[in-house]
């Protein structure tokens, strides 16, 4: 289970790096989404995997019986997902507004705030 998760994280990061190297900002953004999911999976996996053992307390008990999944990483991932969702929503809106105003998604052509490069 851990090996499979590690492989998935690796594939996600590789794909996100590939996407983020593109000049098109939308591709960069998709890469960012994949990277954020990879980070979330990392946290989840670092809490150790316990398949089929949800962190539930049986009715009438104060503590869970036997070995259950670690609930803390799940809480962390939940927080990170919510925050990541908000940030990505903002970034998407920013990308749209930038496209509307700058008429380009090519990050090489976004030179309004910086001096233009000398090209022959």
């Amino acid at each position, binding site marked *: 289970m851990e090996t499979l998760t590690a492989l998935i994280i690796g594939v996600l990061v590789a794909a996100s790096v590939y996407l983020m190297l593109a000049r098109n900002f939308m591709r*960069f953004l998709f890469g960012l989404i994949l990277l954020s999911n990879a980070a979330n999976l990392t946290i989840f996996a670092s809490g150790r995997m316990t398949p089929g053992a949800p962190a539930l307390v049986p009715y009438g008990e104060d503590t869970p019986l036997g070995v259950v999944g670690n609930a803390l990483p799940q809480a*962390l991932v939940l927080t990170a997902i919510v925050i990541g969702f908000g940030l990505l929503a903002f970034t998407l809106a920013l990308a749209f507004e930038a496209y509307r105003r700058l008429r380009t998604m090519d*990050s090489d052509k976004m030179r309004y705030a910086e001096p233009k490069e000398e090209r022959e």
Partner: protein
Amino acid sequence: MMSWLLVMPIAIPFATAVVAYLMRMSDAGRWISLAGSALSLLASAALMVAVLERGVVAAQMSSWDAPFGITLVVDYLGAVMVVITAITGLATAIYALGEIPARLEKLGYHALFQTLIAGVTGAFMTGDVFNLYVWFEVMLISSFGLLVLGGSREQLDAGIKYVALNLVSTLVFLSGIGLLYGVTGTLNMADLRDAVANAENQGLITVIAMMFMVGFGVKAAVFPLFFWLPASYHTPSFAVSAVFAGLLTKVGVYALMRMFTLVFVGDIGFTHEILIWVSALTMLTGVLGAAAQTDFRKILSFHIISQIGYMTLGLALYTPLALMGGVFYLVHHIIVKANLFLVAGVANKLAGHTDLNRIGGLYKSSPLLAALFVIPAFSLAGFPPLSGFWAKYLIVKAAIELDNWLIAFVALFVGLLTIFSMTKIWGMAFWKPHPDGIDPTPDRVPDKVRIPMMIPIGGLAAMTILIGFYPEPFVQFAEVAAAQLLDPTDYVETVLGARP
């Protein structure tokens, strides 16, 4: 009682943000923001008094004992950062009365500003790594909003770069937290100290330390991770860029100082050695980048980078004197840098531009502004007896005591080049006549706008002079702060309770 003291500096800006957002359509928003900032300053002063009495103050949120709950903990370094954040917040809130137009207020400027202050303060006070990540995000999202507020083309362009690079750094930091938890099973910083020291796989710990260093390094804008900063800091309102310049990168430096004195101290020969060279290159590239610029704010932006190098150098050298210099530098720099951006804003209002080729004549027409520019500018360059002299003196002395002559030379050389940039601004914006033949006298701007903009500049300049002429208590304070960083027994015991 203690927990109230610790919660207030965060809760007041948040409450102010809510009220200011509700009142954004009226003129009341700016006064609410101002009142909130003044209250925050009082609250952080009260916190400072408590820290001076007890050394370290901590409180467990919702009464969950450490290391399970979230701890707020403030030592000398944390306390001075909280106070200086509140001071910068108040200064920019006053400045905003004059600078920020009603159009931006209606878009929620004051709410975003107060949330930013809350995020920065939270990051300085938390004792939990994951909570630190959350405060970083609070700070980031409000800084995104402030950066593109108004939506000019330059701002959108800058926003794309700022957002993209900062989000990547956040994800590196987040993955680092995940792995650190996987190795140690705790997120409480005080608890992490022992857990990291006792971890079996020290190689993995070093890898995680490097992930933290990269994550915080992007925020702190060190070489070679600083590219987002000069691409964005010259585009938003002057009040916004002053707060960014003063506080945001310093949160990165603070986080580095905290994690690399409290938690990641197992392999100092490796991690801190990297930091030394990173610091030297940061100082050099920043100051050389500034030399190539002719825009008021772009020059200042590159100088932020160069000055960050001095602070991280204080951490990297890792002696009591060096850390003391680092802490002193941090505080001095926030005051001076924020002030220079505020001066740039007034110069822009009077002379009509920030491009130094297109302005001039400010010395003749506005001698008061010229005098108020000279104080922070020469303090930045390290002229005695201003605050920057003492900050540089401590760092350079620490480098020489370690016989690290190369680093000491770089630090002094960068100081020299800083003078070059500052005299360039002086010569072009203040001394030479205005190229359009305009006489940039103060009465070109109405009193209602000019006076609120000048008050914080005067106040911050006065603080620079005070620290410069009377450095003794500040140096002593920094000495205790550095001692606490190097020997965090007190910090750990206050958070976790005294252990047998």
